[in-house]
């Protein structure tokens, strides 16, 4: 059971540049795969391709295969893809439907679109709210939430479609530290359930160090490294690929250069 990309190459519509080049990647259920890379390395494009939005919604040309639990994404309709793989973007505001008066109705928007009966909708909304521990937000106006809260509501809205995989495109980049903390805890809670596989694009490597099982590095559309999080995040070449190593790794390196012995727990 996995979301798999097999020698995936992608070009945007009207462009001959290959934004992703012969990519092979696997995301298992219950794991968090972190993705890092410089700006323009193709991280956002990877998210769109993995979720099936490229080419289904935005066009372009995809060579290779994206499959979710064995079912190829090519040819699937957007609402079918939405139930296999959810996707969360940077800006919490644009992800809300902008048509609802309460958070409860906002989260119900997706299940309603699928044509579910009211009982099933109510059950899914309650499930998504409690999974992220945001039941208190249910009666609030979605337009009057903090950035962190809005991002959690957006995440709950996607989860309510019960996807087996989630693609998160820098979900904390527009959040303050408190919002990042909230979102991080929510992602951790999700993976503990073991049912959801997460592809997390994130430049905050400290967050990845805590959350990710494995980390992949993208550079100019190519996968240059993939492996267990601790190993990849401590890789000497990380800075050359345009990625800031986590604070712990930088500290360890600085200590080594200075000849200071750090306690084992910090290193």
């Amino acid at each position, binding site marked *: 059971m996995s979301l798999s990309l097999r020698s995936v190459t992608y070009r*945007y*519509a*009207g*462009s*001959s540049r290959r934004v992703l080049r012969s990519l092979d990647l696997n995301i298992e259920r219950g794991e968090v795969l972190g993705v890092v890379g410089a700006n323009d390395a193709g991280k956002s494009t990877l998210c769109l391709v993995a979720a099936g939005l490229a080419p289904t919604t935005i*066009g372009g040309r995809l060579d290779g295969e994206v499959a979710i639990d064995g079912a190829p994404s090519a040819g699937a309709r957007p609402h079918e893809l939405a139930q296999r793989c959810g996707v969360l973007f940077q800006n919490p505001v644009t992800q809300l439907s*902008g048509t609802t008066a309460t958070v409860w109705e906002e989260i119900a928007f997706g299940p309603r679109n699928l044509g579910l009966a009211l009982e099933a909708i109510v059950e899914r909304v309650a499930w998504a709210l409690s999974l992220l521990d945001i039941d208190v937000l249910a009666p609030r106006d979605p337009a009057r939430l903090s950035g962190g809260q809005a991002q959690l509501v957006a995440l709950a809205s996607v989860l309510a479609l019960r996807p087996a995989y989630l693609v998160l495109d820098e979900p904390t980049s527009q959040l303050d530290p408190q919002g990042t903390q909230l979102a991080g805890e929510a992602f951790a809670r999700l993976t503990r359930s073991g049912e959801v596989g997460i592809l997390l694009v994130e430049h905050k490597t400290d967050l990845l160090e805590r959350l990710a099982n494995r980390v992949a590095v993208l550079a100019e559309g190519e996968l240059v490294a993939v492996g267990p999080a601790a190993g990849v995040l401590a890789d000497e070449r990380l800075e050359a690929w345009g990625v800031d190593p986590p604070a712990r790794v930088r500290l360890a390196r600085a200590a080594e250069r200075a000849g200071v012995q750090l306690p084992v727990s910090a290193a």
Partner: protein
Amino acid sequence: MDWLSRQFSTRVLSLMVVAIAINIVIGYTVQTVLKLPIYLDSIGTILVGVLAGPIAGLVTGAASNLIWQYAPGIGGGTIGPFAITAAVIGVLAGIWGYLGVYRSRPATGARLWAAAIIGVVVILFLASRIYNNPAYTDPNVGGYPAWVFTAIVVIAIVASVSVAGFILVRRDAAGAWVAVAGALTGIVAAIVSAPIAAYVFGGVTGSGTDVIVAALRQGGQDVYNASLGQGLFSDPIDKTITSFVVFIVLTSLSPRVVARFPLGERIVTDSEG
């Protein structure tokens, strides 16, 4: 109504929402808060028409005015019945979109100068039509008062210099086409609006442009022709400015994004992006 919205993609629907909000908010701010003597309430309509075709433009224009009329807090006024004009503006914009009027046309040398000259000639021609129109100059029918003629001359000169400058500075011959499309849209809008203003609102709209209506009436024009005269004065100016705003917005958006709209490929030129 459903068959109508079903033929638009989700992307076009999202654009319509934004466009209607832009029409209402910028229109309201310009007319009521800043109290400027132009409308600027069709930027969104023209944008949707150009990117998504005549029917999408029609819906955006009509919906803007109707929602504006009933919007809490800023509603009221005269805007609702002019939904017909707004719809026509949207259809025209869709036609300009099909014709590729808003496509960037980088040019140099002789072709660039030719475009600049065409732009200036079109504006001076339009101005001269208003200036010399016998309906307004014939002493027996009465005419515009002297200050209106002065205003036409001043505005025509400013507009010609702006359009020529726009074309030459940006090295883009599209400016001439944009000016022509804007002016034509304005003339059609005036012709459609005049009977609405005359029939529904007694010929006035409660804005600064009523001064022109009053002046034309003073000169002996009937209710309809006074409204038409005012429209032919205000609308081409307003729609030409709007057209250039839309052109600037389109050229500064990423071609990758523009190309995803139904008429996007008629606007985007180079394909390296």
